[in-house]
């Protein structure tokens, strides 16, 4: 089952994800969830491609899936598409309409709340400068490794501030210039005691919120192995992917990791169970990787969302486009013709010297 096996139709399924880290298949929760899903639904019939430039995806984010000529992005789209492939096993059974509705709501809740917790444990100051930035920088090629991790952090900072999970610290470096320090990966200097006190209060608030979310999932789990059946369903995969990314790394400030291990062991056990079902079960096969040779310097050119799928233009629109180009051509031709016929621009041919002398002699003789 390698990438060059083109006879099996499903072998052309390629999933593009953020690269692996911390012993897991990907360092981003939705990418990891996509890998777990594919491993449980079409084991061995897909290949992974690790990519650090999400700009090539139709939505600008990883994960995205390419299957021959079709490109699907975002986790729900990928799950829907893959469950419709011919030889895929069904994870969700046959729920009633009401149960299906409840699961949709829970999946959205899991993705947003646990996604915020993962972002908090990755991108807050100590963990970012100590663990995540070096990891990201090692994955990325030379020009990107200096500025892309900070950009990713800024994106997550907006969301965490809106939700109220961002600790209120001011990062003002004392003597070094900000640009130089961030390029070299140096953490900004330490804060004064008032900031430390404010951060402790913010930490308590964060822990309150985290406890509320984790309580919800523990109560939903009700002491069983998985949420609905005796095997993982899509909700199990989403919750486990986020939990694994909080548990597996060893960050300098393991607040959430310690919280889960000490107070919510059932969630940690659930995550490990899903991982073992995905990779150590009887019907699983190891992951295959595919490397592509994209030029990393071409990633510097901005795309402005040109990869997003645009709808096919209708007949009327095509006709209008043709007429528009026809009008432009007519304008150019008529401008050139006008300038040629009206002597605004005269092209004069200068004759040779003998002819000019002879005509003068003729005139003199003629007189």
């Amino acid at each position, binding site marked *: 089952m390698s990438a060059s096996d083109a006879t099996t139709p499903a072998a052309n399924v390629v999933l593009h994800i953020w690269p692996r880290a911390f012993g897991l298949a990907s360092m981003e929760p939705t990418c990891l969830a996509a890998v777990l899903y594919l491993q449980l639904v079409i084991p061995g019939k897909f290949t992974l491609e690790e990519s650090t430039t999400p700009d090539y995806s139709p939505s600008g984010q990883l994960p995205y899936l390419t299957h021959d000529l079709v490109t699907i992005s975002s986790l729900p*789209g990928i799950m829907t598409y893959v469950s419709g492939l011919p030889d895929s096993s069904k994870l969700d059974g046959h729920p009633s309409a*009401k149960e299906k509705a409840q699961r949709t709501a829970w999946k959205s809740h899991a993705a947003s709340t646990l996604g915020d917790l993962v972002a908090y444990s990755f991108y807050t100051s100590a963990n970012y400068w100590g663990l995540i930035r070096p990891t990201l920088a090692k994955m990325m090629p030379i020009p990107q490794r200096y500025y892309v991790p900070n950009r990713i952090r800024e994106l997550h900072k907006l969301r965490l501030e809106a939700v109220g999970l961002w600790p209120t610290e001011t990062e003002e470096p004392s003597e070094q210039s900000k640009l130089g320090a961030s390029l070299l990966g140096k953490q900004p200097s330490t804060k004064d005691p008032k900031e430390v006190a404010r951060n402790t209060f913010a930490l308590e608030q964060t822990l309150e919120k985290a406890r509320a979310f984790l309580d919800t999932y523990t109560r939903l789990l009700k002491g069983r192995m998985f949420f609905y059946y005796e095997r993982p369903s899509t909700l199990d995969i989403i919750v486990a992917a986020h939990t694994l990314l909080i548990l597996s790394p060893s960050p300098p400030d393991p607040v959430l990791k310690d919280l889960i291990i000490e107070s919510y062991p059932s969630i940690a056990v659930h995550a490990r169970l899903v991982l073992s079902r995905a990779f150590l079960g009887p019907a699983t096969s190891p992951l295959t990787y595919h490397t592509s040779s994209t030029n990393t310097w071409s990633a510097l050119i901005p*795309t402005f969302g040109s990869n*997003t799928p645009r709808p096919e233009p209708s007949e009327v629109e095509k006709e209008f486009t043709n007429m528009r180009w026809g009008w432009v051509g007519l304008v150019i031709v008529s401008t050139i013709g006008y300038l040629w016929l009206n002597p605004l621009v005269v092209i004069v041919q200068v004759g040779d010297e003998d002819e000019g002398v002879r005509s003068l002699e003729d005139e003199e003789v003629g007189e």
Partner: protein
Amino acid sequence: MTSVIPIPPPLKAFFAHFPLYVYPPIQTRERQEYSKFPTLWIHPPFDPSANLLSSDIECLKWQAYIALRGLSNILVRWDFHPDAGIDGHLPNLCTYSESAGDYELLDRKMIPGWVDTQVSADGLDGFNDEEAKLESEAWISLLEGTVHAAVILAQPPKSLLSEIMSPPSFQSPLNSLKVIFAQPPAPLSGLSSILPPSGTQVDVSGVFAEYKNAIVALSDRLGEDKWFLASSRPTALDALVFAYLHSILSYSHHIRLEVIRRANLVAWHHRALHIIAPCFGAH
């Protein structure tokens, strides 16, 4: 005027030539117009002649909450700029207390507390049991995520002239696409490109596909019940659902087709509108 150091009499006589008068404070015209009924400060309604429900989802959510808890005769006013509210946010509730004899402005987070003082409350906030209250959190996050993103994308773009002529309006930070998703959207100029990040790149068709699934799920969960999650009386979740459904049905965009196709949602919205709209009067 008491002073620690006693003023010598000649100086006191000199100061007596320059007396100090203190006048009562002059109230602004708006303050003079405060009424004794509880007044809600909101963003302007869609159509003031039809009903007084705000065009902003946050304000509409709180209007629906107050009305569904059983209060009525609440006045609304929309002549204030959002900066006039606490923290620069509307809605705010302005109440008059007889005992203090003064007006009090409440932030939206304090509105449930105020409603509890006016109407009795139970521990479960109207839900049937703890399970239902747990499930309501999931529905709230679905609405505030996917459905809110679709509503933002469906808002009619303002014309260039109105954007130039009107003063810069305060945009609630939660109304931006950058903060709705837990996985933040990439910048339009590309994450790895040489330009500084600007703009937001959103897969519009993906958002609308998920929105469609969310509306189908909402409709399936409602079924034939009177209130969501089969509660016996309306809850905060019903207020939120009403706010989103009313906004969706008021825009002339194709997202309202998804809601119109679900007959039980349309009927529920209609019934809730007849309960909520009469509770408010113009200031």
